[in-house]
């Protein structure tokens, strides 16, 4: 009997039962999985292809920053906070510094605020380019990665040129920013400002960033497979998003025009013109498109800020030892991932009595058990990727 005969015989004997018994299967995704952007574990109870229940397990990256902050001085905490969302390290520092400055009662000089704003927007561009490149990759398109990462590297080089660090700048000081690295001065007392050629290179980088956005438009957005995988998938209704504290591009994709840059005054955003893009239905596709458009708006802000950068000091006059009077403050900022805020309770002294870190990704993925229920297993990756979270930002 040949193999073929054997198969034919067996098949003919198979009895197909109409009522298949399909007990729930527990599917374990992660913690080590490329789509989890770090170490997120999902325990899914699936019935065939349908997810009945999902339980995200987080905490693999928990570093206890809130406890560590209680034994550190305010300037030391800067080094901790830019490790929360490491894809946009600089942006994490800003609200913390603004909160500390408001408690102390100093204000950063205008030039320092502009530099903060330029670097914060560059961090947004870098973070969103990371998303624009990795998300199609998760859906099976490898080429866009090369295009977007090339421009991201250019932006990171500029950030590194000013701050000395690509990911963890540690560049903010209470009352301003650190005199920049790379200015090339051999005299210690001479003020080191932005590196030579920074403004021109920034304009050029923004031009190429805008160009790569158009490339991504053509490469990805018109792609039939991409549309099939993202349109109508993972819809978050606006009301549900608000209740879960989903913020940033994820919230705006659901049609809510909520941008802290427009409502709060932690940086001088009111001096610049930019739009707040929103989505229509809040599916994966809208979340992609909102971020794509946000890069264009961020580049627009950077170009305006570079053109109008005022001269002046980088540091306000502050005591060498920062002592913060009693008080309580919450300052939030529109970070690439969403609302990032610091609630500082000071009882006097050099360090906070309590520091609550509100990170965007934590709230953004807390909606997962609700969002993934009833979805199909292949859509898990598409939905996870579209939320653009970073585990350091979830676990703190």
């Amino acid at each position, binding site marked *: 009997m040949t193999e073929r005969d054997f198969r034919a015989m067996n098949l003919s004997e198979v009895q197909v039962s109409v009522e298949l018994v399909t007990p729930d299967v527990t599917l374990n995704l992660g913690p080590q999985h490329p789509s989890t952007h770090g170490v997120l574990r999902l325990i899914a109870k699936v019935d065939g292809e349908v997810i009945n229940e999902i339980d995200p397990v987080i905490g693999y990256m928990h570093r206890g920053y809130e406890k*560590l902050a209680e034994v550190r001085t305010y300037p030391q905490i800067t080094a901790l906070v830019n490790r929360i969302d490491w894809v946009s390290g600089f942006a994490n520092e800003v609200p913390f510094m603004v909160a500390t400055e408001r408690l102390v009662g100093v204000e950063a000089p205008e030039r320092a605020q502009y530099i903060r704003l330029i670097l914060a927007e560059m961090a947004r561009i870098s973070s969103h380019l990371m998303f624009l490149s990795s998300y199609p990759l998760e859906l099976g398109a490898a080429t866009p990665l090369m295009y977007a990462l090339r421009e991201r590297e250019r932006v990171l080089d500029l950030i590194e040129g000013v701050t000395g660090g690509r990911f963890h700048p540690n560049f903010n000081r209470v009352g301003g920013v650190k005199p920049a690295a790379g200015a090339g001065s051999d005299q210690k007392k001479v003020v080191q400002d932005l590196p030579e050629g920074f403004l021109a290179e920034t304009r050029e980088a923004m031009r190429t960033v805008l160009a790569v956005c158009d490339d991504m438009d053509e490469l990805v957005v018109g792609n039939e497979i991409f549309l099939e995988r993202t349109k109508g998938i993972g819809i978050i209704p606006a009301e549900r998003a*608000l209740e879960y504290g989903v913020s940033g591009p994820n919230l705006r994709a659901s049609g809510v025009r909520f941008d802290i840059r427009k409502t709060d005054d932690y940086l001088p955003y009111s001096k610049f013109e930019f739009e707040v893009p929103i989505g229509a239905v809040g599916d994966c596709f809208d979340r992609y498109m909102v971020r794509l458009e946000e890069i264009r708006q961020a580049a627009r802000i950077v170009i305006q800020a570079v053109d109008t950068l005022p001269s002046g000091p980088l540091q306000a006059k502050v005591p060498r*030892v920062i002592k913060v009077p009693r008080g309580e*403050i*919450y300052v*939030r900022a529109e970070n690439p991932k969403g609302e990032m805020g610091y609630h500082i309770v000071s009882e006097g*002294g*050099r360090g906070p*009595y309590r520091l609550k870190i509100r990170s965007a990704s934590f709230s953004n993925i807390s*909606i997962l058990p609700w969002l993934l229920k009833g979805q199909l297993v292949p859509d898990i990756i598409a939905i996870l990727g579209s939320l653009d979270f970073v585990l350091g930002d979830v676990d703190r």
Partner: protein
Amino acid sequence: MTASPSEIAERYAAMVGADSFSADHGTAKIRVAASRWIEVHEALRTDLPFFSWLSAIDWAAEVAVGDPPEEAGEERYEVLSRLSDVGGGAGLIVSTDISKSDPRVASLTGVFGGADWHEREAAEMFGILFEGHPHLVKLYLPDGFEGYPLRKTFPLLSREVKPWPGTVDVEDMPATENVEAGDEAGGAEPEDGE
């Protein structure tokens, strides 16, 4: 921005009948009794639908690490939640005090679904019982973890072993004894040791 933080605090304090309100450093805050925790959030939800975060503070006279309060108040846990509106810039912290001997408060999961993880975090970090929470298990910490890390009585072991590594603590260096008197760093001067 239409209303100032103090106006916001005053308006919502009047609306829900809060015990007191404040707006230090532009941070609007109202204080309510723990028994009214859910009722107050339900009332605020229409105006302030965005649930930003929930956390707690351990108010203690003696601490294992860090600085104790200058004037020790009553020992208690303060539970805080932060809500905000959409696009208007109004935000509000709602606060309540609960006793240390019996730290419990009603769960907000029925009002804001997003309170789920925040309450799990506060529960494992402070040992606060959120009554009515559907799944109050550990969030960050491993299942067998003992103790409540963000309580002031919980020692930070690395700090117990070694107060601070190295000599980078500026305040203890002899040359900076009179820093408060007037040795102010000018705007142009780079910081030492960078």
